């Protein structure tokens, strides 16, 4: 189990990570979801022993990574957001070097390299220089380097940034396989869909703080809404507030000129009763969409902002 207690990292006035408390259970895929700049990378840098926290404690099965770094890191695989590979070397050379740093040698190293390349579908490109690889192939190799020594814990920092949907699906499949084999995975992303599809539990993070933690069902239930309405039209903020704020069973999440996001209370009168009232409110409406509650709506209801903001 990974235990994080009171983790803090401040850069002057900026609180990159501000008092995080978290437990990640063995064998689960734990998602850390938040917009860019929420503090995900800072947090994962501290958990992986790269960035020293201002305060707080990080333990892996009771071993503090900042006290016994070598012991912990032997069981730790990290896949950074940037593609950190030696482009002038072949895929095989890259893996052999990282494997040797993790104590693999001889036949065991060769077997691990072969298996890892096979797992990410790069076995036929093993002897090619990485600089000749596509972006997706480099991402897969980047992932492969974190998996090579079969770590007990795998930390992935936005591993699918900047790649095509097919390559993204391939990476998600690999992560699922690894987790199924018993590896504990911490996965950071700002893609809501990834967190929804992949993670057993999710923490939503913003401004260096965890806003909520739970399974997908628990989080959506926690929002207390059955649906989310998005209204787009030709109106100003004041008139939208005036005409919609009094409607029973409708909770305004975000109101601005031309756009309103509102949640329909699960315990209220229901969508069929509220919808005609919204349409008859007198607002000039061009488009109206209804979404089932998801991590996006949970995030919006918690922060008033969309994840992509």
């Amino acid at each position: 189990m990974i235990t994080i207690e009171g983790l803090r990292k401040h850069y002057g006035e900026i609180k990159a990570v501000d008092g995080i408390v978290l437990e990640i259970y063995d064998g689960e895929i734990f998602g850390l979801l938040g917009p860019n700049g929420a503090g995900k990378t800072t947090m994962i840098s501290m958990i992986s022993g790269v960035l020293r926290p201002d305060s707080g404690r990080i333990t892996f099965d009771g071993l503090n990574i900042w006290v016994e770094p070598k012991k912990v890191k032997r069981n730790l695989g990290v896949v950074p957001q940037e593609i950190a590979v030696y482009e002038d070397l072949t895929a095989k050379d890259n893996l052999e070097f990282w494997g040797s740093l993790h104590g693999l040698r001889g036949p065991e190293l060769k077997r691990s390299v072969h298996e890892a390349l096979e797992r990410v579908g790069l076995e036929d490109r093993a002897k090619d220089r990485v600089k000749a690889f596509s972006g997706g192939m480099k991402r897969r190799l980047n992932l492969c380097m974190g998996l090579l020594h079969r770590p007990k814990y795998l930390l992935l920092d936005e591993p699918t940034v900047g790649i095509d949907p097919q390559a993204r699906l391939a990476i998600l499949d690999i992560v699922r396989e690894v987790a199924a084999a018993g590896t504990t995975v911490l996965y950071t992303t700002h893609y809501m869909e990834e967190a929804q599809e992949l993670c057993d539990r999710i923490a939503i993070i913003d401004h260096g703080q965890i806003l909520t933690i739970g399974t997908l069902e628990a989080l959506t239930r926690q929002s207390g809404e059955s649906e989310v309405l998005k209204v787009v039209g030709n109106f100003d903020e004041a008139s939208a507030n005036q005409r919609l704020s009094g409607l029973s069973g409708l909770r305004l999440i975000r109101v601005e000129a031309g756009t309103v996001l509102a949640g329909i209370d699960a315990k209220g009168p229901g969508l069929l009763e509220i919808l005609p009232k919204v349409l008859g409110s007198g607002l000039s409406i061009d488009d109206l969409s209804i979404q089932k509650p998801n991590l996006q709506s949970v995030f919006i209801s918690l922060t008033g902002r969309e994840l992509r903001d």
Partner: protein
Amino acid sequence: MANILKIAIHDLRITLRDRSAVMWMFFLPIVFATFFGLVLGGPSGTNPVDGTVALTILDLDGSTLSSALIEELKDDRFGLTFQEALEAKASDTVRTLVIPEDFEASVTAGVQTTLRLEKEPGTSAEAALVAQARIVRSVTRLIAGLIMTELSEAEEESAIDVILGEPASPFQSEKSGKNGAVPESKTSNFLKSSRKARVSAESYSPYVAQGNPKPDDEISKKGRFRTGTSPLVSIDTTWAGERPRPPSGFSQSIPGNATMFVLLVTLTYGAASITTERQSGLLRRLLTSPVSPREIVGGKILGRFVISGLQVSVLVGFAALAGIWVDLDLGGNLLLMWAVLLVYGACVAPLGVALGAWFRDRDRAANIGVMATMAMAAFGGCWWPLEVVSQPLQKFAMLFPTTWVMRALHGLISFGHGWKVISPFVGVLVLFGIAFTALAMRSLRVE
């Protein structure tokens, strides 16, 4: 230690995969050393200091003393031609020594006289300097011979005077000449003595060189002068050091280029690789493996050293082969030369790491590396021997490790020194290495 070694070998492997790095490590130093070795004099290091220098004599005096001077000049590797009159200058004259009309009279009277060396426009300044030095040397021998002749006669006279109870000064003997002319017997004695006189560069006395005879009491105190035909003074003409000239040809170009290119590869490729690894997140990723920050920095420094060590080994190997092919004299101690260059490689390796830590941009780090290398190579004597630059610059050059390695290498190659003599220079390199290592450890923070 195992992790440090793994990182170092890995860095070597990456560098050797880079064709341009390999070219700068091995190919270009050999090309440059060969080219400049040939330009600067080739295997024998031909130098005007060693060769015959052309000189035309215009003897307006025509005296015994001027003839004696010409004889001295002939012995000093001058290719002499003679000009009969002022107007009869030959078209191929490069420089002319004019012996004035009153040369003998002035010298024997103790009056200063001036020999004029006229250099033709467009002729070699270096050869003119050599000619000037040799003329001074010949004149010095001439004057020394004259003084010894005077002393021989003065001692003889003094002995007679003592017997007669009348003290005498050696230089008073000139009074016996007519109108200041040197008596015939004295001239012949002088010619005998001057052939035997040699003046050491170290014991060279401006007092004598200016043609001023030493006071008799000072000379008599020395008690070294004897009468008779045996040599009165036997002083060999020698140069300070064991080789009478600054390094030239391959003895300059091989150590100079080895020193410069080791530094160049370390500061450019070394710094650029560190910058790239930092930018791409590889250094941070290294930290996520079971390797400590110190091991990472140590591995990077050792990596640069291993690369420079390989480079040095190839270059010294080339020098050894060149020595066989073209009869190149590199002082005969290639093993010690290799060891000195290895120490130098270890000294500058952390500097490359520190430089890489200071810059975020790969190209900028490499550019600064090139500029730093050029400056240190120029000041350190990689392009020309330090011996030819001014004293203030020689002192300033002590700030650079290149100076100390070049001193050690010149000591081995050009001056035939052994470990005992060059060890202080190597010691300074070690101190530089310690300082640069501390700088690299402080600068490269991978956390």
